[in-house]
């Protein structure tokens, strides 16, 4: 009987997953293997990489990571730029998304639908359209600078300004730092142009993440908050001691997605001049593309891609590890109990 029902399932199961497996195999797994080979070869873009190149060992990786020269300096610059991008975008987009979600989840708020639409809409538009709009907004005599002028401030020529925002402070540090850059370069902060891209990222992603927080808030419900409010907890206290702890899983999801996404900036860099001004908006994702497609150093470009892959995988695993630590309720409880017992013992020891 069971056999009669289950019998053809094997065939159908494979038939149903085959289209997906073929596409993913041919256009994802196979390409990665091919690119992995190219990253260890000296292929120059002519003909097929198989047969028109020779293996050069880890030379491409060494050029980027160890040997001092232009390749290493460019890679260092790209990492530096992206690091500042990540450090600013991830906390800002998470905090703003959380703030917006809490506000538009408030039952007493009128026109909640309007606010949700307003905050989410930028997430719908394509990177190309929104970057075009930002170039218009942040032009030297553009909308942003005209608003700044109302307050008597003279805005910079945003997209053309390569100065790091901390560079007045760090200018004197001429000692060499990692990856062929001076410490002054490492510590000078994101350039003014990069700051615009940071604002752009926060602007377009906060709506998406707002929806993730909103879904979590709706699952949590309002009972516990109301109970805390009856107990006399103020709204800030209520947020930090009641709501936020319950949003922890979503918070970690948003942080992980943010960390993965911010290491992948490509479109905006392509559209704003490929790292201009002065390579201060260059990112590893764009550098990999540029090294391969413009400089025809395919091996080196592929190597940068795989280093970037490594960075993203490492960060994801790190996040997952942190997340698991929080989720393991039992071992956490055990640890808390042990810590409490120790404190009690110490307190007793101090008393006697």
């Amino acid at each position, binding site marked *: 009987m069971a056999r009669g*029902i289950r019998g053809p*399932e094997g065939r*159908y199961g*494979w038939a*149903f*997953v085959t*289209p*997906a*497996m073929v*596409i*993913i195999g*041919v*256009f*994802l*797994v196979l*390409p*990665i293997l*091919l*690119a992995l080979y*190219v990253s260890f070869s000296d292929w120059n873009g002519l003909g*097929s*990489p198989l047969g028109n190149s020779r293996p050069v060992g880890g030379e491409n990786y060494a050029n980027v990571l160890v040997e001092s020269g232009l390749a290493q300096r460019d890679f260092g610059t790209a990492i530096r730029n992206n690091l500042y991008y990540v450090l600013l975008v991830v906390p800002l987009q998470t905090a703003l998304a959380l703030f917006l979600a809490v506000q538009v989840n408030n039952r007493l708020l009128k026109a*909640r*639908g309007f*606010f*949700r639409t*307003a*905050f989410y*809409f930028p997430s*719908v*538009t*394509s990177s*190309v*359209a929104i*970057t*075009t709009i930002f170039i*218009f907004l942040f*032009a030297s*005599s*553009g*909308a942003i600078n*005209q608003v700044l002028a109302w307050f008597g401030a003279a805005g910079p020529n945003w997209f053309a300004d390569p100065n790091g925002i901390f560079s007045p402070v760090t200018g004197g540090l001429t000692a060499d730092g990692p990856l062929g850059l001076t410490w002054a370069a490492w510590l000078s902060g994101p350039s003014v142009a990069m700051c615009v891209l940071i604002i752009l990222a926060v602007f377009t992603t906060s709506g998406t993440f707002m*929806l993730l927080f*909103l879904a979590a808030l*709706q699952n949590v419900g309002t009972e516990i908050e109301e109970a805390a409010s009856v107990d006399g907890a103020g709204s800030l206290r209520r947020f930090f001691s009641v709501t936020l702890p319950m949003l922890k899983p979503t918070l970690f999801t948003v942080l992980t997605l943010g960390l993965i996404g911010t*290491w*992948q900036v490509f*479109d905006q860099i*392509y*559209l*704003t*001049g490929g790292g201009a001004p002065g390579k201060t908006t260059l990112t590893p*994702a764009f550098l*990999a593309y540029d090294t*391969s497609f413009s400089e025809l150093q395919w091996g080196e470009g*592929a190597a940068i*891609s795989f280093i*970037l892959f490594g960075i993203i*995988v490492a960060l*994801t695993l790190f996040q997952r590890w942190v997340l698991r630590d929080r989720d393991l309720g039992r071992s956490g409880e055990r640890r808390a109990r042990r810590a409490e017992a120790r404190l009690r013992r110490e307190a007793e020891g101090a008393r006697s």
Partner: protein
Amino acid sequence: MTATTATGAPRIRRHHRTYTTGQIVTTAVTYAILILLAVVYIYPFLISVAGSFKTEADATQNPLSLLPQTWSFTAYERLFTSVPLLGWAGNSALITVIVTLSRVFFDSLAGYALSRLHFRGRAIVFAGLIAVMAVPNVVLLIPRFLILKQLGLYDSYAGMIIPILIDAAGIFIMKQFFESIPVSVEEAARIDGAGIFRTFWSIVLPMAVPALITLFILSFQGSWNEFAHFIVSRQSADLNTLTTGVASLTSGQLGEGNQYPLKLAAAVLMSIPVAVIFFIFQRRILSTSEGGEKG
């Protein structure tokens, strides 16, 4: 004094009133902040639409004004005459339709097999899927170009479309959804003699409409807005989509001036389809359906 101790009611009322005043101040501040933020989020789009109807000098000098000094349709005229915007839109539409239909169908097919059909190797296929989902898209740019060259698909519709016909995250979404619906209905159908594909097509899929709509929205937005893949999979101008075409306007080899009205008009036009989809499914996307009106 005597009044309050006698009844106690005025004290309660006064207490209530102060509470309300505090609330009014908080509410006013909250509204002020939210309205300001809403303006910050919406105004850029409004002045972009306005800017597309301005003359170039007007757009440059008065970027903030919502009304053009004189209405100018030059930008739109140029987009439809000297710029091959319609060709780009045609390519975008073709690719979006094929990719969206394919993803909705094949992703749910595979998701169904992974959640309901027992076949040897299912666990391995699913583990592979999870691993594939971890591969970031930008890392695939160079590898995808290499394989398209190798297979002779570079710079063709096939090369632009086939690699993105299926997306692992969509399979995952559908698998999760199928696991949330009760298995009893299908088993009844199967015992009644319906074949596996029939059961899937006429019994399971109709129950999965909410997930299918989610997948449809994600696929539509994803393929209409796709940019990086079309940068590495083609080079001829005939194959430009709206994203790559407008990008060539934006990063600007356009002759004189800043051409803001033209660029803004292109950005506005290319955003219309995704905006329409968004407004159609707004309630579902923003989860305002439950309690949205009641609350």
